[in-house]
């Protein structure tokens, strides 16, 4: 009996603590895959989002000097924890908007069962699944990362233009890899290309030689890899090079990783190209890079610029909506629609003044211009990168 009482007391104290938390000025939820499969990627992403919030507070705060506060939630990269955490953020913390979750499956579940019914706007920095485009979301779901469809398709067209007509495709079996590979395959075949091998692989195996041998049997000399260059993708590329299965290699943005150059050596990578997002002739990315380095972050980490943009956009939308959660989605679309005076990362004060003066603003993000379409998606601008010296250099833009 004593134990039961102790347990009940523990639960009560937990709820009591919770009630203390509700005293901040303006709250946004920051929902990330802190524990779980992307645990290594999540902390830098959260840090960059917090940088945006810190800049807002340093430059006079939000909604007439109030403090913007981020409440961090853990989605663990699965729908169960994602929905649980989002429900807490929306109902208990009463956030005005939600930045995250990070994984596509969580985004779908959270949007469907929490944020859309509750009328809260959600912006994800890294949910790349094409399914997010088709959500019945009343315009309340946005993302700062292009759908996998965009990159896969433009890479397919560019390769065909370069004269590569026959390729084999190896992709990591998760939403990132299979989304890209699918879009690539559809576009490549529709435009007259031939895919001689197409196979998924699981991560973390010691050898992929049998997969590679199977893929090379189709007779293509180009291998397209949709994977992460600091993970399985590196192993695949190394084993393909070592055994001479293929001569040319093409990667998606995950493969544009310094780990590849460090591990394999630039001299071995003369036939390797990778597509990756490029910022369009603005200095937004540099502004962000400097600011993020100043707080001790590594701006090359994956999705950090997208995460920063998501947080900054949420703040802009809240300011424009006057703090009314119901108007945030409309405001979000308006602050980055390609029309109005340009606002760059970190220019919070300027943005507030423009909004106060009733002028249109257009946020030019660190990860691209981020002009939302009707589905809340952003088009990506991608370039093909090759290895030059000890770094990646832009070879040409993708079309």
């Amino acid at each position, binding site marked *: 009996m004593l134990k039961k009482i102790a347990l009940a007391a523990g639960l009560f104290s*937990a709820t009591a603590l919770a009630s203390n938390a509700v005293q901040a000025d303006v709250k946004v939820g920051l929902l990330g895959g802190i524990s779980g499969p992307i645990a290594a990627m999540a902390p830098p992403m959260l840090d960059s989002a917090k940088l945006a919030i810190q800049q807002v507070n340093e430059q006079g705060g939000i909604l007439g000097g109030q403090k913007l506060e981020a409440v961090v939630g853990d989605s663990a990269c699965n729908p*169960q924890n994602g929905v649980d955490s989002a429900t807490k953020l929306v*109902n208990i913390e009463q956030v005005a908007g939600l930045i995250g979750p990070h994984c596509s499956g969580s985004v779908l579940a959270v949007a469907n069962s929490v944020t859309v019914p509750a009328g809260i706007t959600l912006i994800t920095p890294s949910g790349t699944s094409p399914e997010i485009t088709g959500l019945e979301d009343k315009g309340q779901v946005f993302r700062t990362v292009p759908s996998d469809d965009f990159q896969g398709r433009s890479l397919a067209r560019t390769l065909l233009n370069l004269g590569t007509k026959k390729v084999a495709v190896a992709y990591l079996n998760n939403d990132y890899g*299979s989304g890209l590979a699918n879009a690539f395959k559809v576009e490549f075949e529709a435009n007259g290309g031939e895919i001689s091998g197409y196979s998924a692989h699981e991560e973390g195996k010691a050898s992929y030689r049998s997969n590679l041998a199977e893929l090379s049997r189709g007779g293509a000399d180009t291998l397209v890899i949709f994977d992460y260059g600091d993970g399985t993708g590196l192993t695949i590329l190394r084993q393909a090079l070592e055994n001479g299965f293929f001569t040319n290699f093409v990667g998606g943005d995950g493969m544009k990783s310094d780990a590849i150059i460090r591990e394999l050596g630039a001299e071995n990578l003369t036939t390797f190209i990778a597509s990756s997002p490029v910022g369009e002739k603005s200095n937004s990315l540099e502004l962000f890079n400097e600011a993020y380095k100043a707080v001790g972050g590594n701006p090359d980490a994956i999705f950090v610029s997208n995460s920063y943009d998501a947080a900054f956009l949420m703040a802009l939308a809240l300011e424009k909506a006057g703090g009314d959660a119901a108007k945030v989605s409309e405001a979000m679309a308006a602050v980055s629609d390609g029309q109005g005076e340009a606002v760059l990362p970190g220019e919070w004060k300027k943005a507030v003044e423009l909004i106060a003066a009733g002028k249109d603003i257009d946020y030019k993000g660190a990860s691209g211009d981020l002009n939302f379409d009707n589905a809340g998606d952003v088009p990506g601008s991608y370039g093909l990168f090759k290895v030059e010296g000890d770094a990646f250099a832009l070879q040409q833009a993708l079309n």
Partner: protein
Amino acid sequence: MELIGLLNYAVFMAIFIGIYSLLALGLNIQWGFSGLFNAGIAGFFAVGAYSSALLTAPESAVHLGGYQLPVVVGWIGAMVAAGAIAWPIGKVCLRFRSDYLAIATIGVAEIIRLVVKSEGWMTGGARGVNKIPRPFGDLSYLYSQLAYLALVFAIVLVVYWAIERQISAPWGRMMRGIRDNEDAATAMGKDIKARRLEAFIFGAAVMGLGGALFAHFNRSITPEAIDPMIATFLIWIMLILGGSGNNRGALLGVAVVWIIWSASEFVTDQLPTEYAIKAKYMRVFIIGLLLQLVLRFRPEGILPEPQGTAGSPEVKTFQKQESAAK
């Protein structure tokens, strides 16, 4: 804190507790009453979730289906599919005893997860199944949550009643007999293999129903949901903590563990942000620690299984007479 928000959160927690209750009750049939160490709950959860999703979802280019059957058909389909998958698995694996069965079922769950991820033509692969209809989904936030809660509650009640009935029937006593002393049961002429298979399928069907309720609640199901941590081991902890072999214990265990799991995030949020992120991992640790403590100090769980034949009607009448005599 607004009251309506608190209510929303409470309703949500109750829905999740209901869904997890089905998984825990399913496991209780297998482990609690029949002694089958099933460590592949996530697999049956997935089969149920996907079957119901595919039966009821609108047509899509990325996965099988487009049948748009009523949700009830989907839920029955989920139970049938999970039971049907359990049959061959049980046929092969149930000859193993305890630990070996656990290893085999972990493997089976992993196979199911990989099939779901890889066979894109059927399941949509990593994109999953979306636009699954949710009963009462068109109502406003609170009302649709409340309506779904009522539905989940009713289903849990029916399942609980069905299991209680089955367990206090001769079948249940026989299962406990087989669990406690297999040789004696064999000597009494019981067909142990067939009986175990029945329990395995019965439990799997209930787990499948839990999966279906989960998929419809979120209107989507993706392979990320088939995480053994959250869909297998968490349920084991719930059952062990609540008291295996006791359905009320299973329900209590689910409620206690889920509330701790969910509410512990509020506690970690009180810390300064730089620690708050690290403290999220603490939640996983707390659940593990809880299991250790329970196993050390109260291995039979909060509500242990009634000893002897205390559950049977004759004994109850006997006890009543006895207490009346006193």
